[in-house]
């Protein structure tokens, strides 16, 4: 046992001590908040420094009065379209909005002229403002006061609750569950892929340099393989925990400092106040917090770590076997297929099935079968999964892990000593069947 520990220690330290590990670990979580911060900063800067853009309105209906905003001022000086275009070309106007004579029931032929291609934000803003005007006008035409209508408009919001076995009510929110399932599923997928590949590279390195011959003269191949898998897994776990810590801290800081002045949000509110009102009410921070509070985080985290490690160990053994079977990374491709496919199936079905309907039978089976369960079950778990399903899935994952490790160790112990011949699936099968 103590030799396995030596292997684990070497695999761990050899990676953690590398500069690239330090850089990747610290920079990766910085990237997202940094990008966010840069965008927010650019947007804020732009908004503050922007000169007012004047738009000439050529209104042939005489019905529209455009209200100016912080960024855009509207001038309505009864110019013809040609005069307005000339002003734009001279640079005296940012653009010209042309409103031809039209039926209010089907407003058509509205055009915007500018030297630059106008931003979608501007077009959206104009469209929203015109839509409101047209609607108001049509309401008046039908004898309805828009103010009355606004008052009548009602927001309906359904609060969803799940009933526990003992009848306890828990407030849920599909958005929060979706986000959690999405995040957990993707993390597990990435983790298995990135660190599984490291296992494979490591095995190939030891095989191609023949270090493995010295090592297996001192300890059993199985010990060597498990030491490598566990050691690299520990590196991944370390990296993950540092990320959680860094992302948590940084996001809090960034959101805390800049979150109050998010310009996009304001723009959206201006463009579509009603929609904004609806979502902001549903997405009310207190409400989300309430939902988050109701989620059993201990269960979630325990399950996450279990599937995180279980999935990694299950696939890690397969990656090790592939590394042992080939002489160089470029030869590994042919054996990667049976590893990549179930992982990709798990990943794709996370979006296609699991997060869409976590209780469908497809989702159920995906979260039970060991090869896909680490990803699929994490997608389901925040929605609430019956205990027996969880127990079955976890039990099968452990069996699956034992199975792949058994198979892999057979391929591994023969493969690491084979050089020069390219094995086929048939030779691998023969190796698995060999006793010794």
């Amino acid at each position, binding site marked *: 046992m103590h030799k396995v520990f030596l292997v684990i220690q070497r695999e761990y330290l050899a990676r953690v001590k590398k500069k690239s590990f330090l850089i990747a670990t610290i920079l990766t979580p910085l990237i997202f908040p940094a990008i966010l911060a840069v965008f927010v900063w650019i947007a804020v800067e732009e908004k503050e420094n922007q000169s007012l853009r004047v738009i000439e309105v050529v209104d042939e209906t005489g019905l529209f009065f455009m209200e100016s905003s912080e960024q855009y001022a509207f001038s309505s000086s009864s110019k013809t379209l040609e005069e307005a275009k000339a002003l734009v070309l001279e640079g005296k106007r940012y653009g010209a909005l042309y409103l031809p004579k039209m039926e209010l029931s089907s407003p058509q032929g509205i055009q915007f002229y500018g030297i630059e291609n106008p931003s979608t934000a501007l077009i959206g803003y104009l469209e929203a403002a015109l839509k409101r005007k047209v609607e108001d006008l049509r309401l008046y035409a039908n004898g309805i006061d828009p103010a009355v209508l606004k008052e009548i408009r009602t927001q309906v919001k359904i609060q969803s609750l799940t009933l526990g076995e003992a009848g306890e009510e828990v407030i849920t929110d599909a958005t929060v569950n979706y986000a959690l399932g999405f995040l957990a599923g993707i993390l597990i997928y990435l983790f298995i892929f990135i660190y599984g590949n490291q296992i494979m590279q490591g095995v190939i390195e030891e095989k191609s340099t023949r270090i493995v011959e010295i090592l297996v*003269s001192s300890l059993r191949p199985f010990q060597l393989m498990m030491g490598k898998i566990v050691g690299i897994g520990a590196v991944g776990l370390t990296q993950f925990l540092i990320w959680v810590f860094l992302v948590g801290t940084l996001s809090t800081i960034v959101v805390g400092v800049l979150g109050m002045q998010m310009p996009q949000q304001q723009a959206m509110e201006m463009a579509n106040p009603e929609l904004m009102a609806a979502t902001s009410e549903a997405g009310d921070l207190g409400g989300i917090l309430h939902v988050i509070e109701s989620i059993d985080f201990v269960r979630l985290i325990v399950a996450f770590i279990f599937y995180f490690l279980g999935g990694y160990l299950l696939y890690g053994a397969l990656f090790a076997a592939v590394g042992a079977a080939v002489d160089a990374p470029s030869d590994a491709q042919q054996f990667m297929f049976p590893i990549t496919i179930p992982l990709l199936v798990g990943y794709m079905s996370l979006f296609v099935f699991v997060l869409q309907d976590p209780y469908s039978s497809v989702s159920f089976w995906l979260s039970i079968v060991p090869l896909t369960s680490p990803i699929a079950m994490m997608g389901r778990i925040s929605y609430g999964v019956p205990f027996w399903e969880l127990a079955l899935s976890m039990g099968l994952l452990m069996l699956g892990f034992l199975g792949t490790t058994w198979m892999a160790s057979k391929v591994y112990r023969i493969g690491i000593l084979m050089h020069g011949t390219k094995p086929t699936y048939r030779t691998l099968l023969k190796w698995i069947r060999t006793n010794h």
Partner: protein
Amino acid sequence: MLEIHKLNKSYGSHCALSELDLRVQEGEIFGLLGPNGAGKTTLIRIINQIIEQDSGEVRMDGVLLSGASIRKIGYLPEERGLYKKMSVWDQLIYFSRIKGLTALEAKQRVNYWLERFEIASWKGKKIEDLSKGMAQKIQFIATVIHQPRLLILDEPFSGFDPVNAALLKTEIINLKKEGTTILLSTHRMESVELLCDQVAMIHKSKKLLDGSILDIKSRFRPAQIRVTLELGNTALPNQWEVESTEKNRVSLLLPLQGQSPNQLLRELMSFGEILAFQEVFPSMEEIFIQQVNSSVDA
């Protein structure tokens, strides 16, 4: 020290070792000779417990091989490599700990060997920053770091540059003096003739012959005599094979045809001044080929 008895190993239908018997004495250098594919590496892997024999036994000091034997064996595989990204120090400590040394012992041994090769300043260097020759030294240290009683070297001189090969040879002799038993495997038979006390020749999974080099060679006479003569006035008999001539100095390679060396010497004296007279044995390679041919005939 090492006894191998009726060892068999086959891979599928291919037989790698059959009924192999070997006996290596304590403190000697034992040469395992044979062409590629003869079964040398399979035998070495079995002694190292990397693979298991199908039948037969290997004993070390009279005891069957077990996990405890690992500490007593040092192994330099034919093709070598180290962890490129690891420092010299970390690497050597790792290999010694894997072999079963405690952390303290490992440190002492690594320091000792780095001093012995006067390369203590390399400690912090990564293998990828070392030259090939430097890496070979580290590789050798990694093999002997745990003071093995049995050192197994597979094709030790291939891949080493001449300077390091000479150093290796010196170290092998030093280790022998310190009491280490050395098992040397090679297909280049001429490279070990002078080094080995005992040899065994293996061909196609079977042992062809074994014994001390002198034994084998004398068993495989007819030996020949190399003579250097300063010619007098008498002409040499035509059937004598002249190897080289320089002015009136000739070198001859003569078979002993039923004569004793002294009789030949006497006969030669009549042709001129004898400058050199030396018995020449067939090389191990010649013996090997001769032996393979005769076993094919049989």
